[in-house]
């Protein structure tokens, strides 16, 4: 697959960091191409480097070696401010622990990235309402995170991640803090997001979530040991 065809191209990625006096090789020479509209699950045992890889792919960590290209832009070479702006406009993030702004309501949380992107107030309100309805929280937009369940908070987080219409949605253990039923709902929502055109990459231990992906990348000890396509369940 050429770089032009892939929404995301990672080449020979390495990431090392110090933990005390030890040098940890979290990611060792990973090369990965992800096509537009794909749904990729990165799986593997704890500590295999899958979250580190996701952070490198999303530009919230810098590789020790190698390159990451998204939509033709080398994000590993970008300066901090440029990379921040790039993430704002091109990448949506969903975290295991939701990380909503507790002082803001659901709709204000969804508005936040749009406000940063200087979307006009009326337009961002309309988009935030549309997104909350999309994730099934149209009636709870004025609730603060503390007034929402875990599943609802994660739905708001997904709506926030989609606010600026990113090409790429990266999710790190999005069902990790949810019960089985809510996790299943979340898996369905992510599949819907993918069907609607967004490229989705998830890091997960959750077999059900991995089973919903079109492609599964297995990691062990910082390297990709298996990479195969599958029929989503």
């Amino acid at each position, binding site marked *: 697959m050429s770089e032009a065809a892939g929404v995301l191209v990672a080449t020979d990625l390495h990431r090392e960091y110090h933990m005390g006096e030890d040098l940890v090789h979290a990611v060792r020479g990973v090369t990965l191409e992800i096509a537009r509209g794909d749904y990729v699950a990165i799986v593997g045992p704890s500590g295999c480097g899958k*979250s580190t890889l996701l952070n490198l792919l999303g530009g919230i960590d810098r590789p020790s070696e190698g390159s990451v290209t998204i939509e033709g832009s080398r994000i590993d070479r970008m300066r901090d401010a440029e990379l921040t702006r790039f993430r704002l406009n091109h990448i949506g993030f969903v975290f295991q622990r939701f990380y909503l702004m507790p*002082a803001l309501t659901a709709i204000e949380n969804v508005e*936040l990235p749009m406000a940063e992107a200087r979307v006009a107030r009326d337009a961002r309100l309309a988009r935030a309402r549309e997104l909350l309805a999309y994730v099934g929280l149209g009636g709870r937009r004025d609730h603060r995170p503390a007034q929402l369940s875990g599943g609802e908070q994660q739905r708001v987080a997904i709506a926030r991640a989609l606010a600026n219409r990113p090409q790429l949605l990266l999710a790190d253990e999005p069902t990790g803090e949810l019960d089985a039923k809510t996790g299943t709902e979340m898996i369905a929502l992510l599949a819907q997001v993918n069907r609607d055109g967004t490229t989705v990459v998830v890091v997960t231990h959750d077999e059900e979530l991995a089973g919903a992906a079109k492609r599964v990348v297995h990691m062990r000890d910082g390297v990709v040991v298996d990479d195969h396509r599958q029929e989503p369940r």
Partner: protein
Amino acid sequence: MLLRLAWATLTRHRMRTLLATLGVAVSAAMLLDMVMLSTGMRASLEDLLLSRGFQLRLAPKGTLPFDTDATIPEASEVIRTLRTVPGVTTISPVLGGQVHVEGVQRTISATALGVDPAVQGDYEITNGRSPSAPNELVASADFLQVSGAQVGDTLSVAAGYDSQLRSFTGRRTMTLVGVAHFLYMAAEQRAVALPLETLQSMEGARARDRVSLFMIKAGENENVDTVLKRIETALPRVSALSTETAMRQLDARLSYFRQLAFILGAVSLGVGFLLVTTLVTVSVNERLGEIVVMRAIGVAKGRIVSQIVIEGIAIMVTGAICGLGLGLVTAKYLNSILAAFPGLPAAIDFFLFEPRAAWTALGLLTGAGILAGVYPSWRGASMPIATTLREEAVG
């Protein structure tokens, strides 16, 4: 959105925000009081000295007005000379002394000023009129209260007590024609004013043709320093003092006061700064996860810093505004205590409120609020996103 987030964050921990604001208010009140104290007495005295339009004062050589018992001899000759000095428009001679007034039950002592009632600058009549005849006098309200005298009463007034002869050199029967507010007298100081010639005569030989002080007005378009130099040339045997020179001398004498005010003001500012820095640091540490996630989703570092700095400024400004009121109340209370300080004119305000003092205090506190917010917020916004999220997840 930035303001909304800052406001929401502050109101999320209402009690903590309230306590920090109150702490800043106390600090601001003290800072305002110290700024008022460092400039108030000077400004107040300058206003007092210029209140009647006299810009120059002549005292016995080497002294300050009423600083000693020394007097200027040949006062008539001095007046004649002064009238020849270009730029001098009004000359008001003043002789200080002591009089004893025989009351119904006891004799009351009072500070006496011998003045030319037509041009005097020492008192303002609050009831009745100024003396217009040699045997008339005006007195302070405190004198009237102690003596029980009233306007229109005839009083037996003596001056110039000779301890060798155990008698007064002068004694007059005088009519009380008015009540006056004496500008330069201390609080509760009993005072009377009578014509200069009458007091000179009553004080005997030691006061003959002598005065303690001349107060002089220069013409409106005259340069006061130029007139001062002309007077010094014409009258080398007296010390001429402009208001500006007096203020410089006062500055030298009040340097201790100002240093104290400066130190206490700096301490107040430091306390306010540390208070807000601590609050912002605690707040940032609590919100590290939120802050790095904001960075992850694309919020610029400068925007995050601005939001947190706004929180610091909001606490500082709100505290400063509350502190302004608190500072004025405490200044008024402290002023009432210090106004009773012996030997100082009651009209002097130690804590004189000037808008500049309030703006200075507000400006300093706002600056401290910005500084207090910048470091912790910049540190928080500069944390490595991935590492911080990993540590947050572990924590």
